[in-house]
């Protein structure tokens, strides 16, 4: 029982990280049709920015941790907004070029991070409570898992609130469904594009700081490794569906943890198998729009 609980919470913590990356990816693809391979770089920059806050202040208390979350989110948001405004905006409807430029940016960003912070992982200290565990049904669950889960739930609620209760949220929901009709109502949908990129970048940056505490280190490859699974989550959840991304993130991460433990470390294989099954039997994903 305790093993199951531990795997479940570890999976939920990892799912929270997947969601923070996949939420932006899903909205960006749903609204703009952009397959953003640079999204992992937003996460990595956020993680390094958060790490810099901790390093420069030399403190590992809760206040600094919260500040690092803010700085990480801001760094991810700024990088994403810059990417959309400078690189992507000129390439709408040119999907091959978009793919190439985001892929190129992801490689260039890793090289840049290598140059600034080195190729070796840098280790991070958080509040002392993170190193403790909490006992749930006999399982000693590392506390940092709870932080990831709570942060992801808050981000999900904030995004849902924004999408449901603001005019820009309404524009984004409508644009995911039929972008050209939004334009044909006299709405400058490009502002929504920048906004979605920025929100997605902020969530990824936040995820980067949390990921650095979850794994205990930051490296230039951190974003890339999470991005692969975030793409899988996005496809399984349904492109453009925030709720789908949340459900799929939890399902993928929990499945991965259980398969790793009970099926001899085959977690990644089982996740890819789940992706294949979804593509075969439900190509639009769990909650995606059907074509």
């Amino acid at each position, binding site marked *: 029982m305790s093993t199951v609980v531990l795997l479940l919470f570890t999976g939920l913590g990892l799912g929270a990280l997947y969601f923070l990356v996949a939420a932006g990816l899903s909205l960006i693809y749903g609204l703009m049709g952009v397959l953003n391979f640079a999204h992992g770089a937003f996460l990595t920059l956020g993680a390094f920015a958060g790490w810099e806050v901790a390093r420069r202040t030399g403190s590992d208390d809760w206040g600094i941790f919260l500040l690092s979350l803010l700085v990480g989110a801001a760094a991810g948001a700024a990088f994403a907004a810059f990417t959309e405004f400078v690189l992507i905006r000129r390439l709408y409807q040119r999907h091959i070029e978009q793919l190439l430029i985001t892929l190129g940016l992801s490689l260039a960003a890793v090289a840049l991070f290598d140059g600034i912070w080195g190729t070796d992982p840098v280790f991070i200290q958080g509040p002392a409570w993170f190193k403790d565990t909490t006992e749930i049904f006999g399982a000693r669950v590392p506390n940092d898992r709870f932080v990831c889960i709570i942060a992801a739930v808050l981000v999900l609620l904030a995004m849902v609130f924004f999408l449901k209760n603001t*005019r820009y949220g*309404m*524009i984004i*929901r*409508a644009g995911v*469904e*039929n972008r*050209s*009709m*939004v*334009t*044909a*109502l*006299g*709405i*400058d*949908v490009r502002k929504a594009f920048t906004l979605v990129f920025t929100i997605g970048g902020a969530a990824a940056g936040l995820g980067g700081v949390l990921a650095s505490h979850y794994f205990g280190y930051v490296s230039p490859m951190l974003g890339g490794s999470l991005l692969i699974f975030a793409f899988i989550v996005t496809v399984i959840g349904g492109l453009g569906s925030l709720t789908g991304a949340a459900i799929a993130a939890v399902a993928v991460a929990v499945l991965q943890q259980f398969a790793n433990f009970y099926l001899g470390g085959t977690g990644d294989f089982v996740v890819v198998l789940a992706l294949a099954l979804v593509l075969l039997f439900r190509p639009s994903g769990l909650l995606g729009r059907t074509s």
Partner: protein
Amino acid sequence: MTAAAEPRPILRIERLNAHIAGQQVVEDVSFTVPAAGITALLGRNGVGKTSTIKAIIGLIDRTGAVELDGVRIEKESTYKIIRSGVGYVPEDREVFSKLTVAENLRLAERDDAPRRQLVEELFPDLVARSGQMAGTLSGGQQQMVSLARALLNTNKILLVDEPTKGLAPKIVAEVAETLAEAAKTVPILLVEQNLHVVRQLAEGAVVLSGGRVVHTGDALEFLDDAELTQRLLGVSADPLAEKSAGKGAAL
């Protein structure tokens, strides 16, 4: 179509060409729409009527001149063209199915003082269904949402693309009535397959064939010319036959 002494047309199209996926769908189209009444854009299926409408507002790649109320707009992006005073009612409604009726309407509001009261008077059913997801509405109700979105704002012209397509005769009559009411205050360029509706509403007619304009003139005169309608539209627009059929000849 409009003589030099007549008032300036609200819309002037000059040598409009449009392409979709590299294929030319509108070829050297020129016509004008007068500043009052309904002008029908007619033609057989696939001659480029919808493409012409989309090209006017820049939804598809095009070249040529588009002048709205004396101002050239062909270089502007779609949203700016719409904001300059064009109401667009697309073929197949294109309501946002995952947004409520109220959200669909709020999204369309671009004036400081949108004409909500007018819309509520014209479409009382939509008020009752304001919280309902637009995707769960019937085809006729979705058409009402689509028309309401265009009528919420003060426009210089409405571009209305096949508003009666796929609707029951009773709903067709309601849509025609709404368009007649709207035309009292704003000129309309109407793509319509139902010739009974065209006869009922349109004053002018522009007929396309193979992506080109092949006829312009008075709508009733055109519809009364059996040989011409047979040749250009492939159907007879005999008014007696339309009446006996109840819903009119369709292209």
